[in-house]
């Protein structure tokens, strides 16, 4: 048994490959102020060819609209490329009442196989926020203060106020949108109206078509009596069943002024609308459920292109109808690759406006193709018959790819063929440029500092190279300054160490300045200096000082300390004499 289970688990990925259909909702528990988004996601390793699934009917909810998206990704494994396609349909619903309901499993037919989603249970709770009041503030408080409520009773006032639902038509076909207008009829002074509830009945989807923000009255007559009426709301109902449906009941409170204010509750009565089935005869093959009055047009972006380029076929459907209840037409078989269409809607309440479908066509081979016309069929309620639009067949000339097209292909590697899907990200970090990061400027500063140090070194070397004598003097001065400093310190401390330090500093100075070997004896060094043409007087004083230093080594410390000041002065004079000689030589 364990082996069988293990085998099943190992084989599970194989079963998971291929078409996968899943359904999900944005919230499993929502309030009456929320919107329910029911998403059907279809993924497949091959292309997905299907019409849009019809919007599921969900108890307690009214269908508002639908949008779809598609994406694909290609994976290269060795020499084999696998393209994974995903298509998502999201249906939006408006909660009508509180309670719990189950979204039934949806049957999706793909490549002659039925795929089923799992049922999802959702619950609706009462919203904590009350619906916004609809009022006419410019009428309600014209003088800048609130009128007192006089607690009048309805019986103490004359006149009547009522709310009526007026459908555009009492007989419609299934799927044909019908507009229901809700008017407040009154012969009293209704200053504001607060909508409180909207009770729905089964058999239709609903969306708001018009929602005025002010009570704008017009004069009218009802049953022979003169009234003023103001439009409160217009709803678009899309019947999804045949038989009789009832318009939603709108209720609210009217605030009436008659020497004080009175609140009066009013509600509309449901109005029956007969929904007829669509004729079963002469249904065109390309009919995908569209019902309404449409103007349809289509065009191809270009009829000449090079191999590797793409063209777009655009289908525009304009008018009023059940845009959210019909699928996109499928392009006929062509020798080119045709993408599933990208839908762009400009619709009011999902029933009126323009829907534009963009099909991207990429030819596989060069030559002249006939692009077949695309058919779109719909049922026209005004004529009671099906109508079909078929675009003209177009001759597409595909030239071979030339050098320029190779280049254009290089640049158009990102040429638009379809909208790229969203990028999956777990987190979005706030953007901060490197230029605002401290580490960037620290690196710049370090590089510049290193450059400055290197520059100083190079300048030093350059000086040494260009004027070696001057450089040697400079170095010797530095050395002497160092040893003289130490010798001076020793003299001030009356230390006998003065003599060896003074001798060492002086000899190093002379060695570095005149290039005399440090290994020679003092008399030999003096002789070498003489050979270099140093004045005899200076040489004699130097020799005397060196002899003094030699003698001081064998003298008792007390006797040498007495002459330290004088000997330091003598050393300074010798150094000064050499410096003068140097300046004289330079001169």
């Amino acid at each position: 048994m364990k082996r069988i289970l293990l085998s099943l688990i190992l084989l599970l990925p194989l079963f998971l490959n291929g078409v996968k259909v899943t359904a999900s909702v944005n919230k499993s528990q929502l309030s009456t102020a929320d919107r329910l988004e029911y998403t059907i996601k279809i993924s497949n390793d091959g292309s997905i060819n299907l019409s849009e699934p019809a919007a599921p009917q969900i108890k307690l909810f009214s269908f508002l609209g639908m949008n779809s998206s598609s994406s694909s990704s290609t994976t290269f494994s060795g020499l084999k490329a696998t393209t994974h396609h995903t298509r998502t349909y999201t249906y939006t619903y408006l909660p009508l009442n509180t309670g719990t309901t189950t979204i039934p499993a949806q049957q999706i037919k793909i490549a002659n196989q039925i795929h089923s989603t799992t049922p999802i249970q959702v619950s609706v709770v009462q919203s904590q926020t009350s619906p916004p009041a609809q009022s006419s503030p410019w009428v309600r408080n014209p003088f800048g203060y609130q009128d007192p409520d006089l607690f009048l009773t309805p019986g103490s006032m004359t006149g009547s106020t009522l709310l009526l639902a007026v459908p555009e038509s009492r007989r419609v076909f299934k799927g044909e949108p019908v507009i229901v207008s809700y008017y407040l009829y009154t012969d009293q002074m209704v200053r504001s109206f607060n909508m409180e509830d909207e009770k729905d009945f089964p058999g239709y989807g609903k969306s708001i078509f018009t929602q005025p923000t002010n009570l704008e009255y017009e004069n009218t007559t009802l049953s022979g009596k003169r009234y003023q009426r103001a439009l409160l709301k217009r709803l678009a109902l899309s019947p999804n069943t045949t038989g009789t449906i009832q318009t939603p009941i709108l209720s609210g409170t009217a605030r009436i002024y008659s020497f004080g204010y009175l609140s009066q509750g009013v509600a509309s009565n449901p109005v029956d609308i007969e929904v007829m089935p669509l004729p079963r005869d002469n249904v065109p093959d390309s009919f995908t459920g569209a019902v309404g009055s449409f103007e349809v047009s289509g065009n191809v972006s270009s009829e000449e292109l090079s191999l590797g380029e793409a063209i777009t076929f655009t289908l525009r459907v304009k008018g009023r109808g059940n845009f959210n209840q019909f699928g996109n037409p499928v392009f006929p078989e062509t020798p080119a690759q045709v993408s599933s269409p990208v839908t762009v809607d400009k619709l009011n309440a999902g029933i009126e406006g323009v829907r534009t479908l963009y099909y991207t066509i990429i030819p596989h081979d060069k030559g002249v193709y006939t692009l077949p016309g695309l058919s779109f069929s719909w049922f026209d309620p005004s004529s009671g018959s099906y109508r079909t639009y078929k675009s003209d067949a177009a001759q597409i000339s595909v030239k071979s790819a030339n050098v320029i097209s190779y280049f254009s292909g290089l640049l158009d590697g990102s040429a638009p063929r379809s909208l790229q899907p969203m990028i999956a990200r777990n987190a979005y970090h706030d953007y901060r440029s490197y230029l605002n990061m401290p580490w960037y400027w620290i690196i710049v500063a370090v590089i510049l500092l290193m450059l400055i140090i290197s520059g100083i070194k190079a300048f030093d070397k350059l000086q040494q190279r260009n004027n070696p004598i001057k450089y040697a003097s400079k170095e010797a001065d530095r050395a002497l300054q160092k040893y003289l400093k130490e010798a001076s310190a020793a003299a001030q401390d009356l230390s006998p160490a003065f003599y060896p330090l003074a001798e060492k500093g002086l000899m190093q100075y002379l060695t570095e300045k005149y290039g005399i070997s440090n290994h020679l004896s003092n008399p030999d060094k003096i002789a070498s200096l003489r050979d270099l043409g140093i004045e005899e007087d200076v040489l004699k004083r130097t020799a005397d000082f060196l002899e003094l230093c030699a003698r001081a080594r064998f003298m008792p410390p007390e006797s040498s300390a007495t002459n330290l000041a004088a000997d330091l002065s003598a050393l300074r004079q010798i150094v000064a004499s050499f410096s003068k000689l140097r300046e004289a030589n330079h001169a």
Partner: protein
Amino acid sequence: MHRLGLILCLLVCAFGLAAQIKESEFDHLLKLDERGIRNADLYYNLGVGYWQTGQSGMATLYFLRALNLNSAHKPSQENLDYVISLSQDRELYPQRLFLVSLAFRIYDFLNLERLAIMALVMLLLASLSLHWLMHYDPEKERGLPSLIFGICLFLLITSALLLGVKSYRQTHNSKAVLIENVAELKTDADDASPRKAVIHEGLILVVGDSSKEWLQVSLPDGTKGWLPKAYVIRVNE
């Protein structure tokens, strides 16, 4: 067996619940945007979301915002090209010559981060080559170190200039997008002034002067005119 089945059922239920309670992705992105997070991927995803809800103007705006942060953001560029190719005013966009397109591609490829790194590397190379040149044996021919230093210095100056220009353009982006369905481009900042052109949602504009309630804008083909401020949203707004 029963235990395994139970575990599998629990896992399936857990995954199902997780899918159900998942917040709408687009709402989540909008909240992040409201919080002021600037991120090219976030702007890109918002652009896709707006496009899927039929708001081509906002989609164009957010693709431009993504490219403003990262000019090498390829999916944003692709989607922007795609949205432009479907717009009603696509003919207004100029067709670039091959070499000009190539230059713009290279300029876009070098986003601010890449340019910053390139400038840093060039600074380092120029410093090293200058160091080499300074310490080079004077007895030898100095042509090679001089050439290398010259090349590095040229690239350093170029990348630094590009970095400056790009950084300035990022913070002073004058592009804007028309978000009104249809708008009339006026010759003056006045409703009564004559109409110059009729333009549609999603058109990319360059903003010039502005008055109290009007903006002077340039269309992609160079036409200048005035539009009400409420009709457009600037990329850097």
